[in-house]
């Protein structure tokens, strides 16, 4: 989740109080944030935010807001959200935007006291919102422009790749939309979002000047905000109207918190949307959720009074109405993460502080226990330890090469599709190759070597709903100058005796074992596994210079056989 950079003096001024670093660390819990670094010399804070559903917190303004309202106990009245406010400026959406990037939200911020910190925060929040919340700009992207250079109304429409050209930010020549996708770094990075379409989105003002090519790049002329900029147009385009509206609301309250006046913009759609065809932004249909005080107290484990609930939730940014018989909570316009009354339980607990709750031990009595397969595995492990074997624990994700020479003709493996490294691209289908890895790495360890592992393997199984099966296998291996079948057989024999399995060995072929010195372990016609002397070519491939004998059994099969 996002990590953001903030100057401490900027944060202090937004909070309205100078906090010590210790006090700040504690208060950051209100925003589920953690202070990762503080450099006193440069005044830089690095803050990590953990809540992926609270994009309003991914900036200095948002973190400060959550702390500020806890300190004052009173949330801001963002009066520009009041329904029915009149917008004098209009953005007209063209009909053919619908299949491409159908939604836009916009507002104007007047009188920003811009400086380096404010500009840095503005760019950072724009980036975090579009990258993380907007999924690399695909669902939501943001443009901010010099208001004074724009003549309303603005058209949000499509243009052919070579229809018009403008100078994109970061370049000094005019390029067509098509050329921007080829040559501008942002065009290369985000071009995939618009390339499936024949025409691309543009914002054009009434003087026919291009504001931007959403979601790719702004115009250098109109779309560059500098430290002397006072008035800006903020717009958010996207494929999800709710997310676009929320993003704009967050940006609007951020500018407001820094002293700007927010002026609305009206969007005129030629098609129906969830919010109608004429939508005035910033948009807030006051959203509320109903609570039952009894259920609330039950979920907390403490009896809560209406007064206390009102006080704590108000200090977290909510408006609480009603009485014990019915509570209605209206949450702030910069939040859209509340889905269930349980969300309010957490907000209450955070607002009050987790440390203010007395932990209570759950009283209901339960009986513990291990699964049958784990008990079987523990029993087998105990016998092998007693027989002088050293246990191993191996990784399950490995390379195809480690398993290839143990595969029967046509045998497949569970393979990763999005491989990151060939060394970790398949799941092991048996444990023995892991023990051979140990041998290959351990020629310096004094002999004899006796090793074993009881571990999970994944095998393809067409008959299963999941197409695969997880088995718990047990493999053991001996390596020393006279290691042979007979010695390994003795261990297997005594192990299966104690596990209560009567077995037979049948001559068998296995790619890892020497022909004529390999046996299939069979019980009533069912195969439990294999035993044998390891083929010299298998050893040579791994540069193992010591004879090895080994066995592997499927403990799930043993369990099935011993369960009567």
């Amino acid at each position, binding site marked *: 989740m996002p990590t953001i950079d903030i100057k401490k003096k900027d944060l202090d001024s937004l909070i309205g109080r100078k906090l010590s670093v210790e006090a700040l660390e504690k208060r950051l819990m209100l925003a589920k944030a953690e202070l990762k670094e503080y450099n006193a010399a440069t005044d830089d804070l690095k803050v990590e935010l953990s809540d992926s559903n609270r994009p309003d917190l991914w900036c200095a303004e948002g973190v400060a807001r959550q702390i500020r309202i806890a300190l004052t106990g009173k949330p801001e009245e963002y009066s520009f959200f009041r329904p029915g406010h009149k917008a004098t400026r209009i953005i007209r959406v063209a009909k053919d935007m619908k299949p491409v990037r159908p939604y836009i939200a916009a507002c104007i911020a007047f009188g920003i006291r811009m400086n380096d910190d404010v500009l840095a925060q503005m760019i950072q929040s724009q980036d975090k919102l579009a990258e993380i919340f907007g999924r690399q700009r695909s669902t939501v992207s943001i443009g901010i422009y010099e208001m004074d250079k724009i003549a309303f109304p603005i058209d949000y429409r499509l243009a052919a790749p070579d229809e018009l050209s403008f100078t994109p930010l970061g370049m000094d020549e005019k390029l067509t939309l098509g050329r921007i996708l080829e040559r501008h770094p942002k065009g290369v990075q985000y071009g995939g979002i618009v390339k499936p379409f024949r025409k691309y989105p543009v914002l054009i003002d009434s003087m026919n000047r291009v504001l931007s090519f959403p979601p790719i790049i702004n115009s250098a002329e109109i779309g560059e905000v500098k430290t002397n900029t006072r008035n800006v147009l903020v717009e958010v385009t996207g494929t999800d109207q709710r997310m676009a509206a929320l993003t704009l609301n967050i940006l609007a309250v951020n500018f407001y918190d820094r002293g700007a006046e927010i002026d609305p913009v009206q969007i005129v759609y030629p098609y129906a949307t969830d919010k109608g065809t004429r939508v005035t932004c910033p948009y807030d249909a006051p959203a509320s959720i109903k609570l039952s005080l009894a259920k609330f107290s039950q979920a907390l484990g403490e009896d809560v009074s209406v007064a206390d609930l009102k006080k704590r939730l108000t200090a977290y940014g909510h408006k609480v109405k009603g009485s014990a018989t019915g509570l209605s909570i209206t949450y702030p316009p910069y939040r859209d993460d509340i889905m269930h009354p349980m969300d309010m339980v957490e907000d209450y607990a955070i607002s009050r502080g987790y440390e203010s709750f007395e932990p209570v031990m759950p009283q209901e009595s339960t009986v513990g226990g291990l699964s049958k397969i784990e008990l079987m595995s523990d029993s087998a492990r105990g016998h092998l330890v007693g027989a002088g074997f*050293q246990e191993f624990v191996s990784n399950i994700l490995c390379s195809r090469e480690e398993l290839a020479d143990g595969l029967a003709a046509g045998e497949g493996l569970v393979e990763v599709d999005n491989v990151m490294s060939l060394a970790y691209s398949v799941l092991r289908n048996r444990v023995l190759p892991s023990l051979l890895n140990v041998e290959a790495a351990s020629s310096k360890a004094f002999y004899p070597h006796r090793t074993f592992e009881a571990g999970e393997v994944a095998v393809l199984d067409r008959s299963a709903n999941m197409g695969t099966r997880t088995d718990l296998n047990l493999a053991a291996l001996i390596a020393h100058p006279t290691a042979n079948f007979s010695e390994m057989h003795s261990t297997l024999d005594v192990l299966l005796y104690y596990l209560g399995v009567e077995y037979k060995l049948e001559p068998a072929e296995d790619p890892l074992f020497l022909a004529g010195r390999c046996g299939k372990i069979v019980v009533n016609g069912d195969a439990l596994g294999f035993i044998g002397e390891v083929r010299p070519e298998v050893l040579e491939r791994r540069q193992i210079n010591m004879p090895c004998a080994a066995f592997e059994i499927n403990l799930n099969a043993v369990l099935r056989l011993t369960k009567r």
Partner: protein
Amino acid sequence: MTPSEQNKLIESFHPLENKLLLSFSRSANLAAADIIAASGLDESRLDMATGWLTAKGLLAVTAEEVSSLVSLTETGADYLKNGTPEVRIIAALREGKQFTVKDIIQSWGMDPSEVSSAVGALKESKVVRVVQGGLLELNPAVDVSAYDALMTVIRHAASIGKGDLTAFPAEERSLIQGNFHKRGKGKGIFRITEKKNRTYSLTPDGKDVLRLIQERGAVTDEASALTPEMLKQGAWKNVRFRAYNISLSPPRASIGRKHPYREFLDYVKYQFVSMGFEEMRGPLVENEFWDMDALFMPQFHPARNIHDVYFVKEPSQCREIEAPFGKQVAAAHKDGGKTGSSGWRYAFDVERAKRLILRSQGTAVSARTMAAGPKVPGKYFSIARCFRYDSVDATHAPDFNQVEGIVLGSDINFTTLLGLLKLFGQEVAKAKEFQFRPAYFPFTEPSVELHVKHPDLGWMELGGAGIFRPEVTLPLGVDVPVIAWGLGLDRMAMIAMEIKDIRDLFSRDLDFVRTKKIQLNK
């Protein structure tokens, strides 16, 4: 040396030392040969015993002379039996046999270099010459007695056994010295070994000790080990068992042993069982449904993209999502269904839910357990191997264990959630100080992180937990509150094993694993 020190020394004597000292009963000054005669020890044991007693300051060397002993090498023994190559060639030519050098090499079973040096020597002394066809021819006029003389010395040396070089006549001595084996040289006929003949006498301490041994008298028969025969025959009653030097390091043993990391996991396992938790298990290959959808992680959640989860190539999907959970979970995502939630409000894609992946979180096992009709009240745990799309380094293993679980019950609420975490901190981490911090997990509300104060490392995060959202529990058929918890125990395992690299938990190095200790319950 005080008498008590002397007595202690006697207690620790090896029988050989006793025997050797007693041979000084008649004479204070003895040559090695005299000691052998008096004690019945052989040479190598004599060397051992004199070495020990000299080191203990009981015996001293009073004189030393070096003698050279002559014996036959393997080649010498062969020549004794078959004659030297020169003698064999001369004899064969005398018998009128016709042959070339090549014939000798091929059919006489002699070493080519040996043959060529013998023929070379015979040619040089003009005893033989090479004629047409490479055949050898004997010159009867040349004296060959020198070759016979060598055979005489070989026979002489063999008859004496290990004889002193000075015992041989002067002319034989020079032949021996010309043909003895030197390390790294070709084959010699004789081996000359140098032998030191030492004369020993007892030191004053040695004399005291001898007197003490003589005074003790009776038990002279010391045993190094108790044998079954001694027990059967009662002979142990008449022997004294030599005291051992117990300060020596023992030989290294390799024993059968649990893996230290597994021992740690077993310990954790039994702790959970003792706290009333039942073990649950799940498959390594999961579908997105149980791994994420059932946990109310929206299909557009950032942690669900291709850079976070390993997808399975073939088969890429399971056949079906178990009814009625597929529909109920889909409804919770879409509009909350019957959970009292507004839901995520998007179009749920069932095909996406079927996508097979490598289990990315142990919570998938909890989801399956909830759907399988768990006990209420009930406590469950699992130690689940999980996979994340991460590059492998000192803090990321290709796969790793997550210790996770659930607690179901009508008394589950925020304060009992904190109580359970406190119990874990006390029991699993042996911590005395705790901190609860607000946290975020897509499937719990409220969510909390447990931080504990470790005696050496200070504050550390031990785990995360929360109460499952109703959007998780209700669609899976569970209508009581459920705590979901997970603990990060690999860090604790690494501390207990004193390792810094998480990959060492899965080390392939037998020596490393054999020598790694783990301290539990610290």
